[in-house]
């Protein structure tokens, strides 16, 4: 019987293949060109190293970039070159030398940008250091602030909040299978605690496809929605900002919070198209993250900067979502302005720092 079924399938397949031959002949030249183009890319860009060879397990924050790297990584829009110092952080300056420390995720890391155009090294008058890694949530940023608290004295501490995912990821115990610290309510109360007891090099096993879909929707609902998840997310965020503010004050550093907008927020049509995947667009408020974080920062007396006031869609790599060279330049300028605004230096030094990027011309003022 199986043989009969096989013969039937073979005959039907022969007929189907004969029908598909014209289509195959038409598409063959396109396939050849696409195949050769992909293969040829290897001659025009450096070979990239997989991510899991560039990060290592870290017992309190889950993972961090390896130290002393000089590698190329591929991403959806190409390949970028990056290096790390003896502690695993990018940038030419050391933590001790830097006057501005930026805590965050892949934006603080400078994902998708070559070393030469990293925002931390654009201003020659102001040493800056990014403390971040792709995939980090705000809990991990806070834990790094705690670990590096002796180095926060007399420094400007800028905390990047990635609007598109931080609020949700703060409540998740894994990031795509890698166990991460997260926030949990204490015994059903309104108080929060940081959980790190589950951290290990073992992968968190889960149904990846189902989790990815749930995660994408959860991130948008948490940041822009009107559900109980949104309230939990912002309550957790307030806890973290309160902890960070207290830590910086105790260490003698000056905390500034800055939100990093998602590309879809810049254009109403893109916004509506993006959120309509997750439900009725009327249930999502594009400006909610800035409004809520501003309220929290006002309560905590922490300066707040809405990134959307300084960035545009042209500052982003459209296929990827991270900043391009222009975006890094813009962020460097913003950080320079924040430093001169908040760290109370002399007028001459203030101006030098404010315009100290490579592109802008410096103007020297007397006394």
């Amino acid at each position, binding site marked *: 019987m199986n043989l009969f079924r096989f013969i039937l399938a073979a005959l039907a397949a022969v007929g189907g293949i004969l029908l598909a031959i014209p289509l195959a002949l038409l598409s063959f030249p396109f396939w050849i060109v696409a195949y050769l183009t992909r293969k040829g890319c290897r001659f025009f860009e450096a070979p990239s190293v997989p991510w899991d060879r560039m990060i290592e397990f870290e017992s309190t924050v889950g993972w961090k970039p390896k130290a002393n790297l000089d590698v190329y990584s591929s991403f959806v829009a190409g390949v970028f070159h990056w290096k790390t110092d003896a502690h695993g952080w990018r940038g030419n300056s050391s933590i001790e030398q830097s006057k501005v420390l930026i805590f965050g995720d892949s934006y603080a890391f400078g994902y998708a940008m070559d070393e030469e155009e990293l925002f931390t090294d654009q201003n020659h008058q102001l040493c800056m250091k990014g403390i971040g890694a*792709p995939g980090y949530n705000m809990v991990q940023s806070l834990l790094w602030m705690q670990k590096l608290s002796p180095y926060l004295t007399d420094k400007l501490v800028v905390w990047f909040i990635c609007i598109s995912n931080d609020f949700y990821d703060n409540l998740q115990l894994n990031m795509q299978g890698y166990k991460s610290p997260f926030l949990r309510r204490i015994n059903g109360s309104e108080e929060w605690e940081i959980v790190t007891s589950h951290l290990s090099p073992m992968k968190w096993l889960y149904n990846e496809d189902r989790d990815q879909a749930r995660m994408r929707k959860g991130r948008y609902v948490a940041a822009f929605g009107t559900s109980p998840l949104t309230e939990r997310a912002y309550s957790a965020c307030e806890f973290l900002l309160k902890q960070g503010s207290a830590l910086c004050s105790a260490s003698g550093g000056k905390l500034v919070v800055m939100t990093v907008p998602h590309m879809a927020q810049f254009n109403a049509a893109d916004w509506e198209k993006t959120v309509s995947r997750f439900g009725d667009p009327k249930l999502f408020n594009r400006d909610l993250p800035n409004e809520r974080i501003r309220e929290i920062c006002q309560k905590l007396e922490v300066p707040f900067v809405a990134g959307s006031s300084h960035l545009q869609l042209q500052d982003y790599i459209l296929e990827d979502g991270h900043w391009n060279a222009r975006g890094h330049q813009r962020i460097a300028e913003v950080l320079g302005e924040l430093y001169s605004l908040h760290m109370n230096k002399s007028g001459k030094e203030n101006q030098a720092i404010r315009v100290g990027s490579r592109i802008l011309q410096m103007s020297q003022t007397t006394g």
Partner: protein
Amino acid sequence: MVTLPPLRPAALKSFWLVISIGLGLLSAFCIIRPVSIWSFSIGAIVAAVLTFAGTHWPRIVHKPYRLYNVIACQISRYGSLIVMGICFYIVLVAVGRKESTLTLARPLALQSLWVSRQPLAQDAYKNQHPIVTNNPPSQSWIPAFCSWAVRSGNVWVCGLLPLLVLLSLFSDEQDNAVPADLYTLF
């Protein structure tokens, strides 16, 4: 895939080099008759001129690249629809004429059809299917597919193989919308 990789400098250079060489060969074989050493020389000159132009004025490559990808996307879209239609409406309909091998278990009175779950070892979560192939991990899915077909007693699905290969050539992983999700961590 018939579509080109996402727009980036290396992809533009590679694409233009392929097109230049292709047009050079076309010139050598088609435009100049009979084919001789002269026709190959002309073809080489055509390829060199185009490559030089693309290298020194990379902007001229952007529009052909995008146009090419638009056409390739349409071919990919309609091609995959046609191939799937052939699979479902010709091959599977023909095979469906033969009755199914699915046999239903009819329980006796008071007999339970409950089957207790056999928990998998942690390592086995990488492959949760009960039919485990002994093939070493490889980049091609074809040996695994054939192995599964033989082991599961569904050898007839091998008749679909040429059509599945054609379908894989039409797969398009590009998404032109603003990415809803950001991370490319791993």
